[in-house]
């Protein structure tokens, strides 16, 4: 039987209302408050072994301490799933559910699930970090929320495949999952356009996310003194692609030494990138990663020096999240090596 640990606030824990919002975290055995409804929904599949009750104000005002205490409690229980709420439209409770779920998931690697109303500030803060079941705005919605949350909780606890948000009832924005619609895409597009033109309601299949835009840094003051590194998403690798970087959807990047290399030749380098005709890049990889030109500039004193390592991956079909993770790693190495500026080439 799966073990579930349930997190609720002082109100649902039966301790009291606002006057008890400073209640310190405590853990009890078994289900408390809404936990009894969940226990009924889980039946023989899972049991709520423990319940943590914490005051909303205490959590919000003593964030680090509250997290630390609660994580210790969770670590001791080792549940198969950490369940929080549902918080409906209670703002501090929603933020607490999101915060503690995020900590349990990231630091303990235990699956988490919470539920709240779409306008709860906790939803906006955590919708891209975890499964949050969409509930009504008050406790009247408990009857609705429990079966949806219980069903998804069991799947998450068992590590099963999770369906699309529209099928499972969690808020869109965390995880994109494929599923089959009744109508084909072109027909859905015609329906959507007709509704949009008539000012009737329609649901976009992909709500536009906040886009991560990077501010440009001030220019390098004296390029003739600067140490320049080359980084590419064009897939240039030593001949034979020793690290087997994928042609598309790369799971890794490469770091290669170019100390003493003046020119990338057909015999020594090639591209691993699957998004373009590789002929011209394979004949002369300097076309994508201009080592030859930078070496000339280094010798002529136009730049301070060319960094002796380059970093490379294939941008083709590679998730932005993966690219960002690679860059965080090698940017630290570049900084460590005293690189002043990077020329980033694509294809």
């Amino acid at each position, binding site marked *: 039987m799966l073990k579930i640990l349930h997190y609720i606030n002082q109100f649902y824990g039966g301790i009291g209302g606002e006057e008890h919002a400073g209640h310190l975290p405590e853990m009890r055995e078994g289900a408390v408050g809404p936990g009894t409804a969940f226990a009924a929904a889980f039946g023989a599949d899972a049991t709520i072994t423990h319940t943590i009750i914490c005051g909303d104000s205490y959590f919000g005002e003593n964030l680090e301490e509250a997290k630390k205490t609660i994580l210790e409690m969770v670590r001791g229980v080792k549940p198969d799933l950490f369940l929080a709420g549902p918080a409906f439209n209670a703002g501090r409770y929603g933020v607490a559910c999101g915060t503690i779920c995020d900590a349990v998931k990231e630091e303990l690697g235990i699956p988490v699930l919470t539920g709240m109303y779409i306008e709860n500030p906790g939803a906006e803060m955590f919708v*891209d970090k975890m499964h949050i079941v969409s509930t009504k705005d008050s406790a009247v919605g408990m009857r609705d929320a429990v079966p949806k949350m219980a069903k998804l909780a069991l799947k998450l606890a068992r590590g099963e495949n999770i369906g*699309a*948000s*529209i*099928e499972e009832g969690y808020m*869109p924005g*965390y*995880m*994109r*999952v*494929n*599923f*089959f*619609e*009744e*109508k*084909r*895409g*072109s*027909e*859905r*597009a*015609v329906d*959507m*356009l*007709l509704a*949009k*033109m008539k000012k009737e309601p*329609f649901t*976009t*299949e*992909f709500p*536009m*996310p906040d*886009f*991560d835009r990077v501010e440009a840094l001030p220019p390098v003051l004296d390029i003739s003194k600067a140490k320049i590194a080359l980084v590419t998403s064009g897939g240039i690798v030593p001949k034979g692609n020793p690290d*087997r970087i*994928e*042609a*598309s*959807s790369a*799971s890794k990047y490469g770091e290669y030494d170019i100390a003493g290399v003046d020119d990338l030749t057909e015999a020594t380098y090639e591209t691993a*990138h*699957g*998004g*373009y*005709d*590789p*002929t*011209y890049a394979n004949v002369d990889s300097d076309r994508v990663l201009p080592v030859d030109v930078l070496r000339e500039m280094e010798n002529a004193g136009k730049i301070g020096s060319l960094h002796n390592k380059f970093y490379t991956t294939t*941008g*083709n*079909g*590679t*998730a*932005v*999240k*993966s690219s960002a993770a690679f860059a965080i790693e090698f940017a630290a190495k570049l900084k460590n090596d005293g690189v002043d500026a990077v020329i980033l080439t694509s294809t």
Partner: protein
Amino acid sequence: MKLTIGNIRITNIVLGEQSKVESGTLYVNPKELEAVVLEDSNIVSVKFDVAKPGESTRITPVKDVIEPRTKAQGEGGMFPGVIAKVDTVGSGVTHVLKGAAVVTVGKIVGFQEGIIDMTGLGAEYTPFSKTINLVMDFVPRDGLAAHDYEKSLRLAGLKAASWLGGLGKNVKPDEEIVYDFSSVTEGIKKYPDLPRVGYVQMLQSQGLLHDTYVYGVDMKQSLTTMICPTEVFDGAIISGNCVSACDKNTTYHHQNNPVVTDLFARHGKDLNFAGMIITNENVYLADKERSSDWTAKLVAMMGFDGVIISQEGFGNPDTDLIMNCKKVEALGVDTVIITDEYAGRDGTSQSLADVDVSANAVVTGGNANQVITLPKLDKVIGTQEYVDVIAGGFENNVQADGSIVVEIQAIIGATNEMGFNKMSAR
């Protein structure tokens, strides 16, 4: 322009003595078809095979899929400017061998050829598990450059589809569908109260094996222009690209453009299908700006009330898609865009390379990074040698039991951005 599509239902393909279409069966004499495709000295040999729905067969690496069609009456011929003379198509009567498809296979050109499984989980993701496929497996001459190899195979596929289609020229179709496209003035007179809806089709034109041809013109060298929607049914637009298999528009997709088909289905009822714009997806910023400016300008000139914009490919073309959408929305014209997503294997990464708030009505063909396991199948047409290096494959993805783990990116037509499939994502 008025075009009648006569569908001849094909329920079987038999390799045999006499090439003909009879009682729903397409009989093909391999020697005759071989003579058609081996005219090209770049091709050394070709092997023919037939793959039917439900069979334990995998076809890979697939380059293009083409539907056999022929002009039965009226002006022009299939694939104008490429196979037939350049005369304008899109009117008269076209016969289609419905249910059959020509699939071209051969050693890899780029990295972006795909897989068609005729059964199992993979079959659910490709429309070509439902067609009876005449597969042509080519061997090119040694030392042929990638782009010449691509071109030779592209033309061989088109020639074969055109030649096979010709076998149905004098066969009575099982079904006739009339597509009648009105001029601007006729349309307004006929449907004064219906919204004028246009279709903007973005064509892959990044170059380096990513090209699309319209009447033989390389689309990256064209300004944004207009086409009569019936022309696409006669092969006016053909695929010449090795973009990831899941979201490249094969020639078959162009011949059966679902947006055109579904707009015609509502024409005169809910909307007035008033025109089709074709634009490119070039890589230079100035080209992107020029092409999207022209898209918006043509939309304004045509006085459309709403448009559907479909994309091809991903990443770089996302910027073209968003530019087109933004500029058309800025005119006060409603848009719906059709795209697909690269949200990572777990679905939690950013789906598109560019976004904008004006793109508030989106249809998605799904997340191309989804990972699936394709079972070991009894028969492979082509070779499985490349399943780890094609886009969507990865190192050691062939399992001990012979099954193959891939992203659906590797499956032909899986996340098509013309809305050909039912798959979506949330």
